[in-house]
C-alpha cells in the first residue's frame, strides 16, 4: 500500500502541469516572492529567514486547514535548524515554484510526507552555514562548534554567538551540497507533542480567515447562480435589488448575477429581490432516482478493469457458496464551517486575491485565467482556512470573485451563504457497487468481484478513475481471485475530492461486505480479517491492538454491539472498533477505539486531533450525510436538513498511536474511511440485517 504515497500525487494531478510539484523546493531561491521579504532579514533558503535582530522566521508552505500544518512544518525545520522553538516566528508562503507551485498546497494527506525530507534538509543546511560562519569568526574548525537554541557554541572556549549575529556572514557562504540529518534518537522536537502555534490567535478572534479580509473600497458580494447545474440566466430585473438600502451595484457575470453592497446582509437581501428567469438547460428534471437507475444499468455491463487477479470466473464456478450484494453511498457536501469565499482586487497594479485556500497554486492559476493578466501580476494571499476537507482546492469561487471585481470595477469579498455552499458545492460523488464473493467449503473467500459506478473525481485515464475504486480494488486482503471494474457515470453534477476521497465510500463497501462474508458462515469478523491479513503485518498489528483495547473477546454490556473495520490508506494503517446501541430507532455510538500506525510521528498531538477529527467527519456522513436531487436541484440547504454531528452525539474516542520509524504516513484523511463500516457492522451485529446503503438508517 505504500505505493499510494506516490499514487496520491498522481491522482490529484488535475492540472496537466505537474513538473514543479515538490521539485525545486530547496535552495537557489530567486522567486517572485522576494519582494515581500523583509530587507533586514537574510534568506538562507525559501523556508528560513534570520534577521540581524536575531528573529528567526520560518515560511510555512502548507496552508493551515486546521490540521496543524503550521506547527508541523515549523517542527521539521526547527529540528535541524536548532533555533529557539519558543521564540521563532512563522508566516504563510507566497505562491512560488519553490513551494511546489502549481500543486503548492495541502491535500492528499501529503503535508508531512512530501516535507519530511526537504524541510529537515533546509534546516540542516542553514544550520551548517551558521556553524561555518561562527567557526570562521573564531578561527576554529566547525567540528569544534555546535548549534543549540538559536546560537552557535564554541565547545573549546565556551564562547557563544547568536544566529542574528552570524546571519549576514552565514548567508554569504555556499550552500552545502549534502548534510547529515539526525537519527530519531537525536530528535528534540519530532515525536514529542508540541503545542500548536495558531491556538492563541484562534481563541481571541484575532485569526484572520478569508471571510475576514477587508480591503479599501471593498464591496461585499453574493452571487445568484443557476439552481440547476449548467443553467444560465435568461433575463434579469434588478430594479428592486438596486433599490435596497446598501446595495451598490448589480453585475452579470458568466455564472450568474452578483449583488454588491456595503454589507453581506444588504447583498443577501438585495439578491432576494432579484427577478431572474433561468434557462434550466438539460438537467432540469434530473433526480436522485434517475441517477441511481443509471448506475444500476451501468453496472450491468463490463467496465474498465482496475484489478484482475487470478481466475475469478473459475473460482466462482467452483465455489461452495456465493454472496451477491449491492451497496450505495450518496452525494455529500463538505460544509466547512467557514463557507467558501474569496476577496479579489483587480486594477492597474494587477490582480490580488485573498482566500483561505488549500491549494494557493490552483487559486493563482484560476486568478490568472479569470483576470487575463500575466502570472507575475497576480498575487495570492493565503489566510487561515475555516475547514477544507477537500473542498478548497479550486472550484469557482476565485474566478467568480475576480470576474465580479473586474465587472464592478472595485474590490469584492464574495461570500457563499450556507445555502449557496450546500446547493453549489462540488460534491463527493454518489456511488453504487454490485459485488459478489465466492466462499470455499470452510467459508473462506476465494474470489471477490465488484463493479463500481459513480461520477469520476478526476479525468479518466484509459477509461479508469483509480480514485473511484480506491479502498476497494486495492485492499490488503489476500484473496487469490479478485476483479474490480469501474463504469463511469457522466453527469453535470459537479464533483470533487472529499476527505479520504474514494476511500470515503469504497472502504465502507469493502469492510461492510467483509463482515457479510464472515457472517455467512458464522465467523468472527476479526478472526476472519486476521486470516486474510497474514501478509500485511502493519495492518494486522493495528487490528490486533484495537481488538485488545476494545475488549473484543469479552462481550459488551447488554444492549451494546461492536463492529470493526480496518484499512491501509494514505501510507498509514488504521483499525477502528465502534461500540453502539440502538436508542429509539437511532444509532448511538458510545465509543470508538482507533489504532493508527503512521510510521514516524512528527507531532503526536496533531495525530490525536486528526484521528478524532477524521472520525467525527466520517461519522457525520455515516449517520446523517445525504445530498439528494429533485428537478435538477439540490434539496438540502442548511444545517437543519444537512446536519452535522453534535457534541451530545460525540462518542468517546480512544486513540492509540503505534510507534514506528518508517517513512511518515498521512494522517489528515486516514481515520475517515473506517468509521462508517465500523458503525455499520455494529448495527449489522445488533439487527442481523446488513447495512447496504449510507447514511445508516434502521428502517
Amino acid at each position: 500500500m505504500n505505493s499510494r504515497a506516490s499514487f496520491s500525487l498522481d491522482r490529484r494531478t488535475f492540472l496537466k502541469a505537474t513538473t514543479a510539484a515538490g521539485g525545486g523546493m530547496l535552495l537557489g531561491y530567486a522567486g517572485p516572492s522576494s519582494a515581500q521579504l523583509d530587507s533586514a532579514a537574510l534568506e538562507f533558503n525559501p523556508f528560513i529567514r534570520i534577521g540581524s535582530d536575531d528573529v528567526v522566521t520560518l515560511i510555512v508552505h502548507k496552508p493551515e486547514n486546521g490540521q496543524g500544518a503550521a506547527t508541523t512544518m515549523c517542527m521539521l525545520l526547527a529540528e535541524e535548524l536548532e533555533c529557539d522553538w519558543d521564540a521563532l516566528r512563522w508566516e504563510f508562503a507566497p505562491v512560488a515554484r519553490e513551494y511546489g507551485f502549481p500543486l503548492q498546497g495541502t491535500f492528499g494527506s501529503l503535508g508531512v510526507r512530501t516535507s519530511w525530507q526537504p524541510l529537515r534538509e533546509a534546516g540542516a543546511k542553514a544550520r551548517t552555514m551558521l556553524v561555518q560562519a561562527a567557526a570562521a569568526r573564531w578561527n576554529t574548525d566547525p567540528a569544534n562548534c555546535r548549534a543549540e537554541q538559536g546560537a552557535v557554541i564554541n565547545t573549546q572556549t565556551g564562547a557563544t554567538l547568536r544566529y542574528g549575529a552570524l546571519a549576514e556572514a552565514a548567508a554569504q557562504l555556499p550552500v552545502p551540497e549534502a548534510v547529515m540529518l539526525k537519527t530519531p534518537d537525536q530528535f528534540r522536537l519530532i515525536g514529542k507533542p508540541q503545542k500548536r502555534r495558531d491556538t492563541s490567535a484562534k481563541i481571541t478572534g484575532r485569526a484572520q480567515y478569508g471571510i475576514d479580509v477587508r480591503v479599501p473600497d471593498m464591496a461585499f458580494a453574493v452571487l445568484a447562480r443557476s439552481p440547476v447545474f449548467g443553467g444560465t440566466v435568461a433575463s434579469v430585473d434588478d430594479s428592486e435589488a438596486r433599490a435596497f438600502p446598501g446595495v451598490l451595484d448589480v453585475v452579470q457575470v458568466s455564472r450568474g448575477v452578483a449583488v454588491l453592497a456595503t454589507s453581506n446582509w444588504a447583498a443577501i437581501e438585495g439578491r432576494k429581490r432579484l427577478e431572474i428567469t433561468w434557462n434550466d438547460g438539460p438537467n432540469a428534471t434530473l433526480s436522485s432516482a434517475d441517477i441511481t437507475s443509471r448506475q444500476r444499468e451501468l453496472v450491468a455491463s463490463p467496465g474498465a478493469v482496475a484489478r484482475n487477479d487470478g481466475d475469478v470466473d473459475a473460482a466462482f464456478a467452483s465455489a461452495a457458496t456465493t454472496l451477491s450484494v449491492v451497496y450505495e453511498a450518496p452525494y455529500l457536501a463538505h460544509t466547512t464551517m467557514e463557507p467558501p469565499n474569496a476577496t479579489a482586487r483587480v486594477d492597474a497594479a494587477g490582480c490580488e486575491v485573498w482566500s483561505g485556500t488549500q491549494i494557493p497554486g490552483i487559486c493563482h492559476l484560476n486568478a490568472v485565467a479569470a483576470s487575463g493578466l500575466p502570472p507575475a501580476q497576480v498575487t495570492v494571499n493565503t489566510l487561515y482556512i475555516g475547514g477544507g476537507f477537500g473542498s478548497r482546492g479550486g472550484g469557482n469561487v476565485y474566478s467568480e470573485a475576480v470576474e465580479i471585481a473586474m465587472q464592478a470595477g472595485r474590490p469584492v469579498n464574495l461570500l457563499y451563504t450556507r445555502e449557496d455552499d450546500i446547493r453549489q458545492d462540488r460534491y463527493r460523488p454518489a456511488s453504487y457497487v454490485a459485488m459478489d464473493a465466492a466462499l470455499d467449503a470452510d467459508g473462506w473467500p476465494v474470489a471477490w468481484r465488484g463493479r463500481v459506478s459513480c461520477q469520476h473525481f478526476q479525468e479518466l485515464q484509459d477509461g479508469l478513475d483509480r480514485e473511484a475504486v480506491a479502498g476497494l480494488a486495492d485492499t490488503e486482503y489476500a484473496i487469490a481471485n479478485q476483479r474490480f471494474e469501474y463504469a463511469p457515470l457522466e453527469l453535470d453534477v459537479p464533483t470533487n475530492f472529499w476527505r479520504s476521497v474514494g476511500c470515503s465510500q469504497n472502504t465502507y463497501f469493502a469492510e461492510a461486505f467483509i463482515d457479510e462474508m464472515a457472517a455467512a458462515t458464522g465467523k468472527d469478523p476479526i478472526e476472519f480479517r486476521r486470516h486474510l491479513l497474514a501478509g500485511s503485518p502493519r495492518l494486522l498489528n493495528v487490528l490486533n491492538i484495537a481488538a485488545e483495547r476494545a475488549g473484543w473477546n469479552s462481550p459488551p454490556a447488554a444492549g451494546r454491539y461492536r463492529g470493526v473495520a480496518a484499512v491501509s490508506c494514505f501510507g498509514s494503517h488504521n483499525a477502528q472498533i465502534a461500540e453502539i446501541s440502538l436508542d429509539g430507532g437511532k444509532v448511538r455510538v458510545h465509543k470508538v477505539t482507533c489504532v493508527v500506525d503512521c510510521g514516524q510521528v512528527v507531532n503526536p498531538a496533531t495525530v490525536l486531533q486528526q484521528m478524532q477529527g477524521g472520525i467525527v467527519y466520517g461519522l457525520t456522513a455515516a449517520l446523517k450525510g445525504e445530498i439528494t436531487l429533485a428537478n435538477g436541484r439540490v434539496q438540502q440547504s442548511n444545517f437543519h436538513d444537512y446536519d452535522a454531528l453534535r457534541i451530545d452525539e460525540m462518542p468517546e474516542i480512544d486513540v492509540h498511536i503505534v510507534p514506528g520509524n518508517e517513512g511518515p504516513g498521512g494522517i489528515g484523511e486516514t481515520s475517515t474511511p473506517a468509521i462508517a463500516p465500523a458503525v455499520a457492522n455494529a448495527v449489522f451485529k445488533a439487527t442481523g440485517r446488513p447495512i447496504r446503503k449510507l447514511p445508516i438508517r434502521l428502517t
Partner: protein
Amino acid sequence: MAVIEFTLNGKAQSVDVPAEMPLLWVLRDVLTLTGTKYGCGMALCGACTVHIDGQPTRSCLTEIGFIAGREVTTIEGLSPDGSHPVQRAWQEIDVPQCGYCQSGQIMTTAALLKNNPAPSDADIDSALHNNICRCGTYQMIRAAVHKAAELQQALAYDAMAPQEANA
C-alpha cells in the same frame, strides 16, 4: 436607517443602520469586529454566538434594533489578552483545529460557567448542542470546559483569599 446605541465590549457604541440588520453583520461588516463568525444565518450552528446582557445569543438572527440600550460582549471583549479562564483552558488543551467555530464555542462556554461553575458532561452537551464543529474537536472541548471550570474555581478562591485573611 436609525441610530442605535448600545454597549459593546464595555464601551459606548452607536451605529446608523437599518433596525432589522442582524447584529452579526453590524459587528463584522460595519464595525470590523470579525472574531464573531458567520456559519449558517439561521441560528443552527452557533458560530456567531455573542453575549447580550450576559446571555449567549445567536447574533445572526438578532436584529440590531433589539440591541438598543443593551450590553454586547464578543470574543474580542471576553478578555483583553486571552486570559479568560475559558480561553486559558482552550489554550492549555489546544482545542482548535481550523478554529472557525471556536469563538462561538468559547462564548457559549463562558456563559455556561457563569451560571453553572461545575458542569457535568450532560450539562456541557446540553449547553453546546447547538455549536457545530466540523473538525470534530468535541472531545477536546469537553475536556477544556472542565479545565475552564477548574481555572475559574481557582480564580474565585484566589479572589476570596485576602478577604478570608482579614476576617
